[in-house]
């Protein structure tokens, strides 16, 4: 049914094993060096290319350092509507994350604690969503969105993106809530707390790491989404970053350094997050797919 292998997220990795000083692992070293080249060369090409002027890009050695580094390309991109795309991306990302958290947290609480058959069947339905590739449903989603007169709005992107992020989000939360000892819930109930109070005072604080994971996972999905924006939006006013990059290709024509600058700028926000909280980001990325 589902591809997801679940381990409780709270269990920690074993303590670092102080390896005996073994002889250096040559094979691994060579492999790592090779992969480093494969990763670094394109990234260097991206960064250095974005700093060249067009003439140098077209005729010069693409691996050398830029002769006359220039930020003009970045200026061109920023004047070319990048701000609008960035803002749209932020709106879509925040909207999707808010919607997913608002729906998934109470849902996960109910799944973890309720005995109702409705909840059980509903959760099974939700888990089926893990196996549905969103790509296969774009045509009906498109039909749905146009019939709801939402076509070419940011809402049109948020709704299906959130819906397809919901299964993983709920699953991650449910697993973390199921790890909460039953006694804690019972203590709350003895105190006469209503389910809503339990949700606020027990569930939310305990599920905080899981909520963070869900938040990052959903945010990345929304931030990097391409298919839904492609099919469901149209005008420059609703264009998100990923589509904007693609459009830049046509808009800038032969200005490849401009395109590279746009790509660099689009990565920058996530790169900053990566620098600040690498561990959080990586955990969020693999949310629900084993730890």
């Amino acid at each position, binding site marked *: 049914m589902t591809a997801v292998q679940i381990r409780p997220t709270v269990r920690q990795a074993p303590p670092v094993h102080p390896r005996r000083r073994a002889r250096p692992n040559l094979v691994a070293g060579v492999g790592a060096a090779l992969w480093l080249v494969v990763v670094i060369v394109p990234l260097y090409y991206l960064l250095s290319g974005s700093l060249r002027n067009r003439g140098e890009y077209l005729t010069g050695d693409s691996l050398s350092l830029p002769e006359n580094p220039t930020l003009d390309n970045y200026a061109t991109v920023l004047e070319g509507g990048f701000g609008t795309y960035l803002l749209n991306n932020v709106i879509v990302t925040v909207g999707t994350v808010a919607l997913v958290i608002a729906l998934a947290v109470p849902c996960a609480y109910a799944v973890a604690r309720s005995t109702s058959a409705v909840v059980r069947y509903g959760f099974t339905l939700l888990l089926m969503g893990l196996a549905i590739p969103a790509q296969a449903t774009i045509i009906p989603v498109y039909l749905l969105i146009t019939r709801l*007169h939402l076509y070419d709005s940011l809402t049109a992107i948020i709704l299906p993106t959130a819906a397809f992020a919901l299964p993983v989000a709920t699953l991650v939360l449910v697993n973390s809530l199921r790890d909460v000892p039953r006694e804690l819930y019972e203590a709350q109930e003895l105190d006469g707390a209503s389910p809503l109070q339990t949700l606020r005072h027990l569930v939310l604080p305990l599920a905080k790491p899981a909520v963070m994971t869900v938040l990052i996972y959903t945010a990345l999905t929304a931030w990097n989404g391409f298919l839904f924006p492609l099919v469901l939006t149209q005008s420059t006013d609703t264009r998100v970053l990923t589509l904007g990059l693609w459009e830049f290709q*046509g808009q800038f024509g*032969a200005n490849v350094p401009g395109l590279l600058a746009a790509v660099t700028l689009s990565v920058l926000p996530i790169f900053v997050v990566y620098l600040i909280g690498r561990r959080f980001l990586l955990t969020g990325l693999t949310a629900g797919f084993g730890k």
Partner: protein
Amino acid sequence: MRRRFGTRLRAVGAVLAAAALAACGTAGPGAGGGAQEPVVIWALQDDALNKIEQDSINRFGADRAKLETFGNDPYKQKLRVALGSPQAPDVFFNWGGGNLKEYVDAGKVADLTGLLEANPQLKSAFLPSVLDGAKIGGKHYGIPMRGMQPVVLFYNKKVFAEAGAQPPKTWDDLLGLVDTFKAKGVTPIALAGSQAWTELMWAEYVLDRIAGSEVFQNIRDNGPQGWKDPKVVEAMTVLKGLIDKGAFGDNFASVGYDIGGASTLLAQGRAAMHLMGSWEYTNQLSQSPDFVKAGDLGWVAFPSIAGGKGQAGTVVGNATNYYSLTEGSPQLEAAKEFVSTQLTTPEYVKALIDAGDVPAVAGIEEQLKSAPNAEYTTWVYELAKNAPVFQLSWDQDLPADQAEFMLTQLQEFFLGNLTPQAFADSLANRA
């Protein structure tokens, strides 16, 4: 009307409407339009053009019409959705031809024949071959609203001079030039083969020169069986001769147009010729200004082919773009007034010319001569004006699904995966 926020309210509405959809599968609620509503005009995003369009609306009455613009590629998708729903615009930008025919066949487009008959001076204001680009089944469905875009053979004068060569007048000249430039290590013809529509320009011209315009028009009007015409195989064989000679170099399949590949090859002198729409001039002007300003960019009409049946001077390309009106629009009368009064005003025509366009309006030779880039624009104007037929690009002239299929088959042909016969057969036999 743009909707961007209000997620919550909309989500509730979404639930209700989705329930309705699931129940009956019909379109959502309609948008009622009162008589005081402005005429909604849809056009492509284009910084220069949009300003001109807005000015024409201001002359018509800023509150009587409203311009909404959309990006290029998905515009057709957007238009299709809108025309299929109650939220249709009153006036919409289009390419004429088979693309428009689909909407005409669906009963979505207003017949403008009566309007043109009643205003002879409006009808005669446009070049007839261009006005006919939006004529379907003997009726007019569109009014030209911008410049003409014939496909032109551009060449690099400097590279030609270095090789002591003259631009081609005939197909044999062209074949000779291929040898000349190959010997000099220059790619004879730049081709952005990763985008099939650039290859299409070659097929269109060669078929036209060899068989005349009837063969394609038969395909358009009577269906894919028309590809079985032996002239198609003949033309594609001639084209294959050019490809097999190495005219396009050995990596054309990965050269792009959007990313500027082919244009840059020409400007840098790494390629000698480039067949492209007339917009290539302004494109080069912005991307490689030194190349154009040095006077190195040359242009000629597509060469003739000895023994071919095609009328000399026929051009292919985008005749122009048209404004068409939505049938059943509550603003139909106002929309008619807009298109019949605003597209031929001196201000509008002048603005187009100043932006580098060559409007499809009769008698503007003098005006062109006094505008920038006069040498080029006058030449394009004469080329289009004297053309007995202005064949619309096939991908615009065929229904979308046929066009899509044709383009992929054409790429296979250019790669050598399909013989001329196999190309014609696959198009003719498509279900």
